[in-house]
């Protein structure tokens, strides 16, 4: 048990679609569980990661909390992986990058169609939004990238088995998709 490979995962400004796709490895998860244990991840509910071998990051960075979580992962994971389109180029959330933040908030919480009790949320527990959404390689060093929206289960499988078996991870043509 003690020498299992420790994997942490998180979703920043993502939709958890990459996590869902990871779960699509289906019964291969049992094989993976023989050599891997999950640290911080939505599937364990552990709140902070410590001394991990592999960190999988889904989503880009859209608020202050994302930045803190990303840095925690970088500080605690030997290998940090950008998973999916949003982590790699900001993806769908980055479509707000051309619109000033104030206009986005006004549209969502004040002037938008169907808004009730118009008020911009300002609870101190809420992380502050960044002016723009950023891909994670702009914040910390990233070791590997798994493109796709989402990357297929086979991409996760190929990448993790390469790493676990001591090979330099690589994705053949048929596993590289940006869509």
């Amino acid at each position, binding site marked *: 048990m003690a020498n299992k490979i420790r994997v942490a995962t998180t979703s920043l400004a993502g939709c958890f679609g990459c996590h869902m796709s990871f779960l699509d490895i289906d019964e291969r998860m049992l094989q993976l569980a023989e050599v891997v244990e999950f640290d911080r991840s939505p599937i364990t509910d552990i709140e902070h990661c410590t001394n991990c071998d592999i960190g999988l990051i889904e989503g880009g960075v859209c608020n202050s909390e994302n930045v803190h979580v990303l840095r925690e992962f970088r500080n605690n994971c030997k290998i940090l992986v950008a998973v999916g389109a949003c982590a790699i180029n900001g993806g769908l959330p980055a479509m707000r990058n051309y619109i000033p933040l104030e206009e986005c908030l006004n549209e969502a919480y004040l002037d938008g169609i169907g808004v009730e009790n118009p008020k911009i949320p300002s609870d101190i527990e809420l992380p502050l939004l960044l002016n723009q959404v950023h891909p994670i390689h702009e914040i910390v060093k990233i070791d590997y990238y798994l493109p796709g929206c989402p990357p297929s289960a086979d991409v996760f499988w190929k990448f993790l088995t390469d790493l676990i078996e001591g090979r330099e991870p*690589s994705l053949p043509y048929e596993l590289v998709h940006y869509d």
Partner: protein
Amino acid sequence: MSKTITIDGKIIPFEDGQTIMDAAMAAGVYIPHLCHQPEFTPHGSCKLCTVNVNGRNCSACTFPAMEGQDVLNETEELIEDRKKITQMLFVEGNHFCPSCEKTGNCQLQAVAYHLNMLDNHFPLFYPDREVDASHAEVMIDHNRCIFCTLCVRASHEKDGKDVFAISGRGIHKHLIVNAKSGLLKDTDIDASDQAVHICPTGALLVKRTGYQVPIGERIYDHKQIDQVALAASGSRPVAALQPSMAVGTENIKHGE
């Protein structure tokens, strides 16, 4: 005896007037490219077809083939250069494949796949660009324009219309249309024009056709761009053509 150059050590015949790209394509050797299409005047702007000719880098699509050229194409260094060029094209515009209807049919994406480009490397630029959906049949999404000028050339050379041009320099460079209003609806463009269909990205699209072929069944989902480009140009691989002749030529050359 026909004239020859070598590409990565392979003997490639050429005729006077052919570029290195022409000779390579005819012989079944793929050199990555985006702004080049065999039937249009070469432009040499995307630089993806950068090859090394006798020690100097140049664009294969514009450089004339000449006797005695030793061309390097698939070296680690050139592949890395091309990957960086492609990454720059991606970060300079707004190329979000999951929300683009050209995905799977896009040459920019296909070249990136071919080069095994997995990340953008550079910081994203997120330029603020317009979409012109004013025309009933055709739309321009400037977010995806890479200024290859293929639509400019196609409109001028094939359609005889001059609908498009590139205006501005550097960061202000952009595609313009030939109408006082600046809108596509006030041009004489037609959905059947070659200019509309030549776009290597999703910048020029015919409306209401984007999802006729489902994602996963598109051109580059199962075939690499080198196969597609070579098949389209009707090339005949040299090795399959006349291996004995190729060997013979080499012997003659060494004998000289």
